[in-house]
């Protein structure tokens, strides 16, 4: 079992408070996912030609300024870095392959959580309330977000196994359910030169869909191939820089409910995560149908 939450804020004034609005949603999913939690939030984009990298260090006392200094010295390019404890956001003009390779070779303990112009990702083990406090979720600002609470069923409980998973740029996915053929998908993608970071089933779905879109499919076509390729149970919630997308497997084995309001669109595994949203009684509530793609644009 796991819990998913998603929120897309239409009312521009409320975007600064997206973290606060989301908090009761995430906490409401604690019973569905008490072992890890994570959040991807889409913010104002960085400057033209820049990319930001969300980084996770294994220790709260990590020397981020030291990393930035080494980066400048080795690559001859100034980076901007902002950090809090074990999490940092690094902004650079360099090619993403260059940056990721440099981090991997020089700081193998530092995990790249996300790459993109808008996406920030925070994820860790612990109760959702603990993870939210550690990374100050109530302060998050942005247009839309994708969150997850995890109850692991098929791979280890570590920060890297927590959701959201990311691939490519400004793309993330959270999953409630379990896939039965992640290893065959993984083998297929590895032949395409795609590298994996964990043995988690969701990572296979995340990288499969991102690969399809990189090959030219739009989200509809990629998910259609996903339905053909992914075997198992899933409610998937996905985020791109300007949209949220939701699908459920053909048997609708895992739940989802949507609240559409003039000010926001909210998605959760269960209504109890939507109950605290402002004016939710005037929102249109519905259950998404199996095997249908729902997309909301910012």
């Amino acid at each position, binding site marked *: 079992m796991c819990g998913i939450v998603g929120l897309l804020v239409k009312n521009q004034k409320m975007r600064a408070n997206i973290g606060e609005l989301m908090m009761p949603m995430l906490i409401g999913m604690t019973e569905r996912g008490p072992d890890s939690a994570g959040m991807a939030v889409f913010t104002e984009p960085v400057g033209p030609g820049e990319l930001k990298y969300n980084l996770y260090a294994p220790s709260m006392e990590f020397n981020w300024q030291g990393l930035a200094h080494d980066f400048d010295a080795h690559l001859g390019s100034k980076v901007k870095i902002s950090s809090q404890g074990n999490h940092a956001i690094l902004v650079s003009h360099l090619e993403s392959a260059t940056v990721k390779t440099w981090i991997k070779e020089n700081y193998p303990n530092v995990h790249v959580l996300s790459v993109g112009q808008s996406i920030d990702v925070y994820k860790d083990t612990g109760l959702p309330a603990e993870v939210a406090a550690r990374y100050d979720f109530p302060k998050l600002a942005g247009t839309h977000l994708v969150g997850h609470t995890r109850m692991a069923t098929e791979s280890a409980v570590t920060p890297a196994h927590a959701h959201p998973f990311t691939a490519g740029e400004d793309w993330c996915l959270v999953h409630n359910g379990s896939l039965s053929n992640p290893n065959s998908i993984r083998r297929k993608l590895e032949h395409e030169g795609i590298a994996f970071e964990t043995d988690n089933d969701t990572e296979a779905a995340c990288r499969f869909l991102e690969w399809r879109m990189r090959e030219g499919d739009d989200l509809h076509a990629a998910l259609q191939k996903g339905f053909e390729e992914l075997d198992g149970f899933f409610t998937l919630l996905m985020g791109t820089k300007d949209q949220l997308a939701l699908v459920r497997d053909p048997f*609708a084995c895992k*739940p989802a409910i949507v609240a559409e309001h003039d000010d926001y669109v909210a998605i959760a595994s269960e*209504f*109890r995560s*939507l*109950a605290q949203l402002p004016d939710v009684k005037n929102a249109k509530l519905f259950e998404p149908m199996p095997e249908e793609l729902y997309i909301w644009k910012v």
Partner: protein
Amino acid sequence: MESLDLHKISVRELNQYLHKELPGKGVDKIEILNPDGAHNIAAGMDCPVDIDIRGHGGYYIGGMNKHANITVHGNVGWGVAENMMSGFVRVKGFASESAGATGHGGTLIIEGDASLRCGISMKGIDIIVGGNIGNFSAFMAQAGRLVVCGNAGDGLGDSLYEAVIYVRGKIKSLGADAREEPMTDADYEAVKELLDRAGFKHDPNEFKRVASAKSLYNWNADANQEY
């Protein structure tokens, strides 16, 4: 009437009160405020009382109900009135999956739509749905009646036993061994009585009957596993 507020007490405290203190107390009407999608509200009732839940419920609302008359003024999550024995459960909004699953008796009324697997393995309950029902509904339904005023999804009544389904709208597809049968006078009577019970105003003549062809009742060695 007593009013109980789930912002002030937990579901466990509520249900312990409903099970242990309420019977014999002479209270005939209970109102539950701020359900906020909580699970198991008024599950395991075992006394005649009217319960109004003012808002949306979570999973297993009114589960295992005996005797109580429960109304949800909102939507419910999975397994509403699952394994109900007797009494009434009415949902004013829509119900998520597995509504009335394994119900032995009583009446479940859903005024909106019911999602997938409505009435799965029902064992004597009557379920009346004002809207549509999702795929795989009444799977292995053993006894009782399922009335659908809207449309039915895929695989309706797969592997049915003795339960009977009445559908007013379109049936996307029937499951294995389910078949449409002619309506008899007794069927029209039954549909009329069930619609009256729910307060739904439809003409029984608009309904069709789905029941088991009973071809799965006995092992057929020649079927070559092709059902």
